[in-house]
């Protein structure tokens, strides 16, 4: 079993790396051929499948529920991002986003290896609620990762059109601005209830556990900031036409806060502390 998990991990790393390389080569290509680029999403899907095999077999082996451990939760987050990207890619013309998603998936898959695999146990809180808390956060983060990537590509595309640089050369390779804006919005809409649930349950846990360290306070603060930023983007879009560049900046800021929270979790877990 361990062999399958290890082999799937290494093959997944190779597939993600190859997919990322092909996505970037497609962005940089000068010729009219896209034959290589056609393999990029396939390799990303293969990487996702191997990633899933790795998560399932490794969690079975270590007798840990995949969302009950930060190690697997991190890995699972990237898997959700890859799955969501592959599902949305064709419909929303998001090919170039793969250049962001593939490296993110690779980073999470590899980065999770540096976080302990043990099941997290937190005394004094409902275990069921904790599982839902982690699951909601994992799902939300997966969706927000793509939203952040779409927002980043929006800024690149918008700047290019505004400065009128390389308009002819890059035109067909980056998604249309409206498609990127729509994708960001839809992913925020889908992920925000999950984030809200995660923040609320997190606040409940903090209250139940009592006094908190400065790192935990910072983590909570950033969690609230993420919720406020992403929620603000959604509300302002509805009320004040907060779209395009501003929405992209707001989304990216929220996603950065979210990533710092995850980093704090990872640092904490790797140092052996419980959730």
């Amino acid at each position: 079993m361990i062999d399958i998990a290890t082999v799937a991990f290494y093959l997944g790393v190779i597939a993600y790396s190859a997919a990322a390389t092909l996505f970037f080569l497609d962005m940089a290509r000068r010729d009219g051929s896209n034959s290589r680029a056609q393999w990029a999403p396939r390799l990303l899907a293969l990487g996702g499948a191997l990633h899933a095999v790795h998560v399932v077999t490794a969690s079975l082996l270590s007798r840990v529920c995949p969302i009950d451990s930060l190690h697997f939760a991190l890995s699972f987050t990237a898997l959700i991002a890859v799955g969501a990207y592959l599902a949305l890619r064709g419909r929303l013309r998001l090919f170039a986003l793969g250049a962001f998603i593939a490296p993110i998936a690779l980073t999470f898959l590899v980065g999770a290896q540096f976080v302990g695999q043990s099941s997290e146990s937190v005394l004094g809180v409902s275990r069921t609620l904790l599982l839902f808390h982690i699951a909601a956060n994992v799902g939300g983060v997966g969706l927000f990762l793509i939203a952040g990537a779409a927002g980043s590509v929006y800024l690149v595309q918008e700047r290019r059109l505004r400065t009128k640089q390389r308009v002819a050369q890059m035109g067909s390779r980056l998604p249309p601005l409206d498609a990127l804006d729509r994708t960001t919005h839809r992913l925020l809409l889908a992920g925000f209830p999950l984030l809200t649930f995660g923040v609320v349950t997190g606040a409940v846990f903090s209250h139940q556990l009592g006094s908190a360290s400065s790192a935990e306070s910072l983590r909570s603060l950033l969690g609230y900031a993420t919720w406020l930023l992403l929620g603000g983007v959604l509300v302002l879009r509805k009320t004040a036409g907060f779209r395009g560049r501003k929405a992209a900046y707001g989304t990216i800021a929220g996603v950065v806060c979210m990533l710092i929270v995850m980093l704090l979790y990872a640092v904490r877990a790797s140092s052996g502390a419980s959730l």
Partner: protein
Amino acid sequence: MIVVVGLSHRTAPIAVREKLVLSAEGLPDFLRELVQHPQVGEALLVSTCNRVELVAAGRAGFESDLTQVAQACIEALSKRAPDISPHLYTHVGAGAVRHLFRVAASLDSMVLGEPQILGQVKDAYEVARATGTVGPVLHRTLPRAIRAAKRVRTETAIGSGQVSVPSVAVDLTRQIFGDLAGHVAVLVGSGEMAESVARLLKVAGASIIVVGRTLAKAEALASAVGGTARPWSALADSITVADVIVTSTSAPHHVVDFEMVSAARKARKGRNQFFIDLAVPRDVEPRIEELDGEFLYNIDDLSKVVSETLSSRSREATAAEAIVRLEAEGYDRWADAEQATPTIVALRARLSAALEAELSRSLRGRLKHLSVEDRSALSKMLESSVNRLLHQPTIRLRQAALERGSELLSLEQLSAAINELFALDTDQDAESSPDNTADLPEAEGSSASSLPPRPRVVASRR
């Protein structure tokens, strides 16, 4: 080998080119008439708005006198328009092949890298095939030209980007909005270029609104581009609902100002808007670019994109020329090797005939008891024997054709020796062969290079 005779935008003005245009109905008859000429065996006509070119091969295949084939083509074209002779060019042999490959690859087009020419060459080939004026030479030449053109398009960026202001404008619109179905475009004013943009936007799925100072003119234009007309007083409202605004008025001042766009932006709740200002002096106040979600391209911006695309294509032309050169060299090698074909076919026919005669005699005599299956097996065995016997001679002859100028025996020497030894008459023997080119090894350089070295022959032995 082939000849190309014709004229193009490089040698003839449109007033001359249009004299040679043939209708789709008249083209087959023209080609049939041309191949009635005693020297012309195959012909096709590439006819576009920028060129009319006859591609022809001789009746004797690779042995044809191409000068006479070219002369026949010149006469055929001159018959249609007597005064075109000074504008005609003629390419013969390897030069004609290279020219055809360059034409198909759009390297000789008025707009470098334009995609239509490849389709037009394919169409010309199909029409000639349907008419029955394509033979073995053009059947091998045209697919190679098409392959070279496809390589150029996929391996270089010669076809990337748009090269006209209207198409660049629509391409940019797609980069902002993606699918244009359900989007609204407003055309303010008139003008040929603005009308072209509106037509392209309409084809892409956008709804068109035409706003003009004179409603009657606006209605006429709306009718022409498939849109609806609105009076000048509805300009501000139209801009509010519009995703794309194309302006082309002759007004001496801005007709779309910052305040108008700011107000529209609020009503649109921040949705993107794209202004295409084709007017000089400009119709749209440049300051609107400061607003988030408002994109403005004027005629200079669009022309700059066109110019960048053309420059980029020119840079790619070097790589494209290299591909064409390689493909043409490959064709030359094949054509050289094909010159050995008459001797090979004659030799095969002679051997097959001799063995079949012997077999028939035996089957009527000592072997008459054999069953139908046995007879068939015997026949196949003899055919296989002929193939095995002729394999090395075939390769040697093709190698000799490919390695002209080396110290090895030349194709002519080898062919003469074979003809002498077997008393071959290549024309007669080839015609008597049931399938005169079947099973011949392919004449690519690679097959020859994998052979053991041929014996060198000193001059005194000849």
